[in-house]
């Protein structure tokens, strides 16, 4: 799963440089980099949308789970943006009349086939995207780091076996493998569907199961190199136990490149999750999720230009969200990789 350019080398040893040649801190460089700033702006915007979701798109009163999109009828024909509510609409948000001058709630982004309110789905889908991206990345990272450290710590035959197991998992194309895992897990975990988030959990696990290998390999390599450093020798010389050396000295010093690579991958995980939803295996029907909203347009291939809003709004939300992560990630990598810096 690791992206190709995992050329995150060791950070420059800045203490060896004369003060005048010290590169500015990572934070400063991120702020001065136009691309990363636009990335931060995008992500902040989405974070605000996610937090303010109940204000921006109020759920119907007495909703059991606000993550489910309210339906306005079951009309299979999509309705254009601005269509008024046919059924009882959710409460009017306070800013609505001031901004639009209308005194009734409409479907600002239109209705998808089946009566789903696209606006509501796009707004609340921001939460799904954040949760999917961050949780999946964190869990995948933890598993990768555990497996990689275990492998490097024990070495020898165990390392060899672990490496082969990692390679077996890497044999499959990522999306195909995640698709397979989701297919198997859906009936197994679907029993708890009443909770409402089962689809999210299923797709998440499916991605995690086939996502950890890149991190395991990366940290294994870094641990093997850190293990030979002087301070590890020193710790050993004063009689520290292996486990303590590992936890206190080796992993903290080796984990950094893996963290960076994982942060670069958040966008990929969001896309993969959305792709599973698009194929009908992620979020349950009606769950606020951009991939699923896009999938509603699959039945309208010949008339897509009439029903453009079914792809446009959720699709663009997804594109800009992923773009935000990628812009920040790209800048981080450029800054941390001195080889790249010379070329800029």
């Amino acid at each position, binding site marked *: 799963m690791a992206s190709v350019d995992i050329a995150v080398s060791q950070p420059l040893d800045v203490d060896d440089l004369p003060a005048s040649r010290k590169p500015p801190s990572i934070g400063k460089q991120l702020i001065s980099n136009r691309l990363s700033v636009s990335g931060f702006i995008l992500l902040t915007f989405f974070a605000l949308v996610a937090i303010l979701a109940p204000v921006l798109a109020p759920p119907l009163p007495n909703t059991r789970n606000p993550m489910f999109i309210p339906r306005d009828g079951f009309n299979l024909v999509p309705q254009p943006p601005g269509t008024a509510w046919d059924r009882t609409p959710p409460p009017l948000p306070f800013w609505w009349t001031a901004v639009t001058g209308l005194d009734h709630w409409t479907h600002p982004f239109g209705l998808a086939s089946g009566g789903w309110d696209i606006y509501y789905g796009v707004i609340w889908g921001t939460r799904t995207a954040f949760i999917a991206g961050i949780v999946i990345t964190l869990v995948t990272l933890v598993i990768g780091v555990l497996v990689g450290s275990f492998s490097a710590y024990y070495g020898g035959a165990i390392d060899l076996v672990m490496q082969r197991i990692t390679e077996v998992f890497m044999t499959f194309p990522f999306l195909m493998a995640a*698709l397979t895992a989701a297919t198997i897990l859906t009936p197994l975990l679907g029993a708890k569907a009443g909770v409402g988030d089962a689809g999210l959990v299923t797709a998440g696990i499916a991605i995690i199961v086939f996502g950890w290998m890149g991190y395991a390999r990366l940290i294994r390599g870094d641990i093997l190199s850190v293990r030979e450093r002087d301070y590890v020798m020193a710790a050993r010389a004063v009689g520290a136990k292996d486990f303590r050396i590992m936890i206190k000295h080796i992993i903290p010093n080796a984990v950094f490149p893996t963290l960076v690579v994982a942060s670069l991958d958040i966008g990929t995980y969001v896309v993969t999750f959305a792709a599973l939803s698009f194929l009908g295996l992620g979020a349950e029907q009606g769950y606020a999720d951009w991939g699923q909203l896009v999938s509603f347009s699959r039945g309208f291939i010949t008339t897509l230009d009439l029903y453009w809003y079914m792809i446009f709004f959720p699709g663009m939300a997804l594109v800009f969200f992923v*773009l935000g992560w990628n812009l920040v990630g790209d800048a981080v990598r450029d800054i941390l990789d001195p080889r790249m810096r010379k070329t800029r």
Partner: protein
Amino acid sequence: MYAYIIRRLLIIPILLFGVTILLFLMISLLKPDERLSLYIKDTPRNEAVAKGLILRYGLDQPIYVQYANWLFGRQDEDPVTHVVTVKGGLLRGDFGWSKTGSDTIAHVIQRRFPATVELALWAIIPIVGVGIWMGVLAAVNHNKLIDQILRVFAIVGYSFPSFVFGLLVLMFFYARLQWFPPGRLSDWASQVVQAPAFVHYTSMNTIDGLLNGRLDIFLDALRHLVLPILTLAYIQWALLLKVTRSSMLESLRQDYVTTARAKGLSERNVINRHARPNAMIPVITVSGFTIVGLLNGVIITETIFVYPGIGSIAAQAAAQLDVLTVLGFTLFNGFILLVANLVVDVLYAVIDPRVRLS
């Protein structure tokens, strides 16, 4: 170098063994009656009959026995005629029955694979050609306007999920302009292809069209391929562009390039003869990722463009929770990937002497 290749070759059976174990562990998560499709066509609704079949195919036995049966096949004596046959067996090429494809999984793959290969082969040409060209262009015009534009293109392209991109191009080029239709062939063309007079040399419509002297079939097939190729290509372009650009920049800073310039060679010669060949080494590694990208990409792309390859049927099977069919395709894809990786590794060793010496 031969030692290196042989070492790589020896790892493949070990990996394949691991792959089958992993896949079988997944299968064993299914209920016994769901696993019946490994051996028979229709799972009977009658519980007693199903139970009999489960016993007959040993689906209640310890997991390692079941694994061996799955791998090598199982002797099956017909209770009426007492004819003994071997059923199942991955090593015999029997992946089981596909409910989605209403055929054996092996047949479904056989029938649909040429379409996917056709798509992938046509896609590789623009992916590699245009991707490398853009990367070199960006590096040569380092920090100029064209470089900035290409960088933005790469990062936007990388962020554009293929299903959003595919639906947008379909919206524009098909629904609006009616230029490039989805599917694999127009109705009139598929009638021609299905007629007995049309010889299927490769089952790839573009090539068969040419071999049969039917230029109209070739063009019709190509017209259906344009949008899927574009959808498969743009995300790979972003990747190739990034890698080629940074590798080319690295290469342009080397002493031998300065020497070449100092000799008074034209800039064109410096780039084409001295800088670019060495910049291609990392690009070849990335081309391995292109194959992975294509195998992943065809799932979404074929689904959107209703293209009858292995990707679309895998997605269809997944949506219907037909686990055994999906697993069959996963295994097949994994095998392709193993072979592809081997080829890339060998190519790498041939090109870069540092690899084979280490």
